[in-house]
């Protein structure tokens, strides 16, 4: 049977390039590996030239694959399953890229493309290490492209191609008809949760971070096979810095995204998917510090190897956790089950590179030089090493709890998350924050080998006094209000707060007094300052976060009295229902749900909420703003909401919709009652009365804009409720194209509907009104107050810039380029994190 209107050519082209890239990656691996084993310089060079050619063919092919996927997605060719699953016609063009990397295949492709980019740089910069380094990069490429292959070997499909056809994958009656495509009206499209500009920017940055961790381990490998112990560190350090910067930024972009657009009320929830990315970063940073120690003192070489190899192992382990569906019961946002073959493939990839490098490392462990002399307790390297160990141990702690589903699979246990998951992490890591804060502060003033105690005391005394005074003042005037975990934890928070403030001040003081604001040499101090500032922000924003939509404080709703357990609940009542047009008190604000506005996206509605803060004494309006949280309501009542946030410099007001009213289908039983009124007459209803003020002909105001051909009469009515409030209503009678139309108006808060039904014979006006008990317009929302959240983002931006400063300093970039790079990174991050949403 031939099918109509199919576009099979792009799929064939795309699949061909996948195969070409796959073959090229194999050739490149073999050629580079051979080159790395050959001693004869001439022969080596010819193998390298061959391998480079294969690598560039691979790069070109992957770009072609990407372009093809983009092409079929942007043309909505639903004959391809990938397009059907991830694209849809109503999707805005900016999300086209996002729907490419929403799926497994697209995200593997993105990862592979970054390897191509990094590899191209390495070819020109790795010099004598090129062959060994590129061997590792290409092995990684081999596995990633394997995942896109979709070929059958012995009846098992290896990998999953993005170009498979819908009709070959799905079973359904429509596929037996030649014109089946005309039945597929639209694709499923991007998951509404992911429709956010962060979805466009966060995955590429995170995958660049993932891809870049292959470079340090590749350098470690190059030194292990050439037995050139230690020589790799200098070459790999800039790459490790790059990786630390990009991965760290990528992770926090995920946090910012969660904060801006998801409704779990914060930027970090210790979700397994978040932890899986954080753990390799922590180990990488530990490794980075060991490498710096080695550069200055020749210590810590073995630890550098270990941490760099483990970083890569944990990057792949996190891929395993998030992509095999094993986290299904514990995480809100992991990928789903991808099929056994795919899981096995991912499992092999996890150990394929790190295990052989580990083997080489342990085989040569004895030969790797280490310094036998004990470090001085007053040396910088000693405390840096302790810091690295702390980071490493906290990474192990985090991953050991996160791996719970893996233990369950392996040992057949049925353990589940602890009752308060966040707290079980927080109570350990708050102590880590204390130690890390103190170490990053003190060790700036330590010198390699040993430090004069008097110098140290002299230098540290001033920052110590300032930060002590600062944190005591903070504890008095702006205490952390996190009492629900007891006084012990509160003290720990304050200690951590002191340690991170101390670190911020010490690092700033170091930049001033030691470096004399020579920022070029101050990358480390800048990064540490940023990190400490970020931790400070996290402690304050999480410690003093408040739910302001708390019913038990507003006293609006009395809980159901039919609670069968018959006891008072200790659960906070954190959601508040707002009736349309009824001002409701919430925290310091009076909130009114004014109206809805539709979006140009299908199923998306914005709910406009007016927040007013009125001074109770003077009655002056101090704050007045409108927040528009929105929600997608799918046809199966599936609700996906995006928060609306008001950003102030010192705090955010954060709201999201948790329930919306669903218009009731059943008929309204109440009926309109007709009244014949003169201007000035009033009518009583159950909760007050209303007055007909005037009748206006063709008014032009904010509500009505009639064309000159229309004839319209608008009744101006004021409703006086018993609650002392008055409302305006303006039902209208419109004659348009010789047809009469009645424009009903409503006063929702009084359940009143008005119609202007005509003019009576006695020159009176026919106004009909009805009261209904079918109250349907309300929303339920949750609102938070987030203080000093900007410190978190500012800290992150500073930290990333510190990484970049170190990086350009290490590669000895020309001054002009260095300034340009730092300026661009600073501007980009500052815009993304601080300005873009304000």
């Amino acid at each position, binding site marked *: 049977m031939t099918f109509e209107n199919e576009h099979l050519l792009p799929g064939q082209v795309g699949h061909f390039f996948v195969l070409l890239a796959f073959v090229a990656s194999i050739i490149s691996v073999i050629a580079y590996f051979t080159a790395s084993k050959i001693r004869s310089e001439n022969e080596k060079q010819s193998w390298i030239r061959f391998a480079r050619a294969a690598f560039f063919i691979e790069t070109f092919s992957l770009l072609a694959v990407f372009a093809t996927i983009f092409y079929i997605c942007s043309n909505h060719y639903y004959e391809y399953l990938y397009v059907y699953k991830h694209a849809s016609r109503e999707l805005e063009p900016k999300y086209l890229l996002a729907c490419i990397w929403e799926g497994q295949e697209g995200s593997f492709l993105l990862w592979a493309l970054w390897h191509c980019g990094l590899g191209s740089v390495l070819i020109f910069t790795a010099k004598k290490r090129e062959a060994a380094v590129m061997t590792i990069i290409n092995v990684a490429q081999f596995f990633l492209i394997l995942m896109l292959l979709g070929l059958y070997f012995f009846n098992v499909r290896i990998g999953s191609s993005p170009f498979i056809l819908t009709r070959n994958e799905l079973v359904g009656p429509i596929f037996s008809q030649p014109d089946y495509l005309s039945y597929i009206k639209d694709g499923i499209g991007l998951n509404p949760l992911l429709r956010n500009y962060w979805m466009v920017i966060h995955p590429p940055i995170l995958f660049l971070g993932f891809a870049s961790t292959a470079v340090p381990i590749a350098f470690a490998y190059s030194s292990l096979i050439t037995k050139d112990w230690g020589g790799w560190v200098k070459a790999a350090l800039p790459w490790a810095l790059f990786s630390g910067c990009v991965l760290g930024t990528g992770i926090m972009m995920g946090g910012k995204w969660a904060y801006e657009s998801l409704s779990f009320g914060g930027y970090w929830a210790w979700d397994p998917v978040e932890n899986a990315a954080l753990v390799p970063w922590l180990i990488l940073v530990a490794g980075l510090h060991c490498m710096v120690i080695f550069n200055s003192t020749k210590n810590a070489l073995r630890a550098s190897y270990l941490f760099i190899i483990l970083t890569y192992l944990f990057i792949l382990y996190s891929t395993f956790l998030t992509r095999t569906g094993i986290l299904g019961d514990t995480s809100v946002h992991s990928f*789903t089950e991808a099929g056994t073959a795919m899981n096995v493939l991912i499992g092999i990839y996890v150990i394929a590179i790190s295990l052989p490098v580990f083997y080489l490392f342990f085989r040569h462990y004895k030969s790797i030089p280490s310094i036998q002399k004990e470090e001085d307790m007053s040396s910088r390297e000693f405390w840096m090493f302790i810091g690295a160990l702390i980071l490493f141990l906290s990474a192990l702690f985090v991953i050991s709890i996160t791996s719970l589903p893996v233990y369950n699979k392996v040992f057949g246990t049925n353990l589940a998350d602890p009752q308060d998951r966040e707290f079980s992490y927080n109570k350990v890591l708050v102590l880590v924050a204390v130690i890390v804060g103190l170490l990053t502060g003190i060790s700036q003033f330590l010198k390699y080998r040993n430090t004069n105690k008097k110098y140290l005391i002299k230098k540290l005394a001033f920052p110590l006094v300032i930060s002590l005074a600062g944190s005591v003042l903070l504890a008095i005037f702006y205490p952390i209000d996190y009492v629900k975990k007891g006084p012990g934890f509160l003290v720990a928070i304050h200690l951590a707060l002191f340690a991170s403030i101390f670190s911020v001040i010490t690092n700033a003081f170091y930049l001033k007094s030691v470096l004399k604001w020579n920022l070029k040499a101050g990358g480390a101090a800048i990064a540490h300052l940023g990190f400490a500032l970020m931790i400070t922000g996290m402690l304050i924003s999480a410690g003093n976060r408040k739910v302001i939509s708390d019913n038990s404080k507003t006293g609006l709703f009395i809980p159901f009295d039919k609670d069968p*357990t018959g006891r008072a609940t200790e659960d906070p009542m954190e959601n508040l229902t707002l009736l349309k047009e009824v001002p409701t008190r919430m925290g310091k604000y009076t909130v009114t749900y004014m109206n809805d506005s539709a979006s140009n996206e299908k199923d998306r509605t914005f709910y406009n909420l007016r927040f007013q803060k009125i001074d109770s004494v003077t009655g002056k309006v101090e704050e007045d703003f409108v927040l528009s949280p929105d929600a997608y309501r799918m046809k199966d009542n599936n609700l996906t909401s995006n928060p609306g946030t008001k950003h102030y410099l010192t705090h955010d007001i954060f709201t999201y919709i948790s329930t919306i009213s669903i218009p009731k289908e059943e008929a309204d039983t109440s009926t309109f009652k007709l009244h014949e009124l003169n201007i000035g007459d009033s009518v009583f209803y159950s909760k007050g009365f209303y007055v007909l003020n005037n009748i206006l002909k063709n008014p032009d105001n904010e509500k009505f804009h009639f064309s000159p051909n229309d004839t319209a009469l608008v009744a101006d009515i004021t409703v006086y409720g018993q609650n002392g409030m008055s409302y305006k209503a303006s039902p209208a009678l419109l004659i348009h194209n010789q047809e009469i139309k009645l424009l009903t108006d409503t006063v929702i808060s009084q359940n009143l509907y008005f119609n202007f039904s005509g003019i009576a014979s006695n020159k009176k006006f026919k106004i009909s009104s009805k009261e209904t008990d079918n109250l349907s317009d309300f929303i339920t929302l949750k609102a938070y107050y987030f203080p000093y959240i900007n410190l978190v983002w500012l800290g992150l931006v500073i930290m990333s810039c510190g990484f970049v400063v170190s990086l350009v300093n290490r590669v000895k970039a020309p001054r002009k380029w260095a300034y340009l790079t730092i300026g661009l990174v600073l501007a980009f991050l500052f815009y993304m994190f601080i300005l873009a949403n304000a």
Partner: protein
Amino acid sequence: MKTSSIIILVIIAAAIGGLLMYSVDFSTYDTIGSAKQKQGQYVHLIAKLDKSKPIQYDALKDPNYLTFYAVDSLGNSTQVIYRNTKPPELEQSERVVLKGKMEGNVFECKDILLKCPSKYKDDKKQLEKTVTQY
């Protein structure tokens, strides 16, 4: 790395190990039957929404009170109280993971994780159902 560093290392590792032991009180996955045996203990129930019994939720009366019935694969049933808003996809869910405590015959739920067919694009059966609906 010599004696002094090793000592500090061991102390730190021990301290963190101790904290870890002390701090993490893992919960368990249970059936309704076994949860009823563990009154007041925090557990994870894997169950299904009992569609034959009504879901009670009225955001106008109290937005923080939801109650419904859950059944597990062994056929046991319990009333569930969740003091929060109703997850919109509850009715469509295929499976629910309920975190909370059994109090008498009522499950006091703190958190609900839903498994909904609509969210899982990689489920072929579901794709086959939706492919003609659009």
